[in-house]
């Protein structure tokens, strides 16, 4: 409860019109972002505890990829095997694409019932590589479709990097 409370306090504090609209000085805006980040970080523990209740206590510590907005994710870039877990908060089944930044390699994606899941590697937009502050070595996104995740349901996918062939050259623009 205290983990959720930390996010609740940060979100409550962000109801201030300055936090919503950005009408505050930069260092105040940075503080709002810091509190929200701390609060969101705490909720990873809530998900881990909940998943361990359902999947057993050996279920690993859950992590968000908080840098997806710059296509960076430590877990998927630096582990040859990892598990992606989706929780569907809606009261109806959803089919949704899953996009995770990875290095170029051959992967094997295994779905909930042991079936092989077809995936694709899509190259990242060129501008991503010019962003200051991005330290990731991901060059592609692993894309697959999570079909019919049940209402308020949980599903996980096991991903294994099989081997790492030389990545292909970046595609040349069509009409450069």
């Amino acid at each position, binding site marked *: 409860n205290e983990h959720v409370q930390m996010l609740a306090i940060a979100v409550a504090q962000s109801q201030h019109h300055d936090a919503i609209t950005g009408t505050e000085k*930069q260092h105040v805006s940075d503080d709002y972002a810091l509190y929200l980040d701390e609060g969101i970080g705490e909720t990873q523990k809530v998900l881990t505890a909940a998943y361990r209740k359902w999947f057993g206590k050996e279920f690993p*510590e859950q992590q968000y990829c908080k840098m997806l907005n710059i296509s960076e994710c430590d877990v*998927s870039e630096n582990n040859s095997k990892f598990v992606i877990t989706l*929780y569907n908060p*809606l009261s109806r089944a959803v089919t949704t694409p899953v996009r995770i930044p990875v290095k170029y390699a051959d992967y094997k994606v*295994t779905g909930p019932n042991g079936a092989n899941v077809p995936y694709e590697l899509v190259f990242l937009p060129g501008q991503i590589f010019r962003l200051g502050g991005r330290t990731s070595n991901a060059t592609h996104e692993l894309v697959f479709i999570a079909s019919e995740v049940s209402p308020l349901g949980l599903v996980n996918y096991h991903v294994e990097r099989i081997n790492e062939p030389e990545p292909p050259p970046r595609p040349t623009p069509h009409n*450069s």
Partner: protein
Amino acid sequence: TEEVTIENGKLKIGFNGTSGLVQWIEQNGTRHQLQQNFFFYESMKGYNFNADNRASGAYIFRPTKNQPTVISEKINLTIYRGKNVHEVHQSFSSWLSQVVRIYDQQESIEFEWLVGPIPIMEWIGKEVITKYTTKIASNGTFYTDSNGRRWMKRKRNQRSSWNLTLTEPVASNYYPITSSIAIRDAIHQATIITDRPQGGTSIEDGTLELMLHRRLLYDDSQGVSEPLDENQYGEGMVTRGKHILHFNELDKAAKAHRLSALHTAMQPVVTLAPTHMESNEWV
């Protein structure tokens, strides 16, 4: 310079092979005009240290001209066609690119834009917008959602409860969008679903424009006493996000909007964890 098309069994999107811009959308065998491009409004600087004319700033959106400036005339396209997804990567400038993508069997188009750092070498503040243009005869009317619950009807250059003196032809028509903005006529509706609250409007019939990012150089003297510059490490911030566009016959628009807006606002929570287990052990 031949036309570029991507399709997914439900939709087909055409890109002009010379300009690189989205040109049309084809659905159920019928082709409709759909264009999209990025522009920026030049920000008002204010005068006499804001003693009178107010600058565009954290509280105020105030362009110097009513016409926005187009960001690029020539766009590079890189195309990806896969089983689950078709994508066209557009590069508008060193600080602005976009991926237009359609997933297999989906009836919506995803525009994922990446904007920034906004350059200010001419010392001009910029307010970057994306603009979607259709042939929908919207007749000066558009709709923005109120907290994701219901549509608010908006009439260009008017207010529902008082006679508006139009001093700011652009800014007066910008409204807060929590999750969606739409235009419609008797036949079609175009709906844009956002992944965060933004400002938006329909300045001309058939168009929708939304503000994505701003970099301003003067305080608007409303109390912050700091320009909205966000210059971490001396350069501007970068923002990345998505718009989901639905182009529907009128009687299908409400369902498409509601299901998609809820799915966007309450996406599945994705978490990762390293493991040593083989897949069969894990299963």
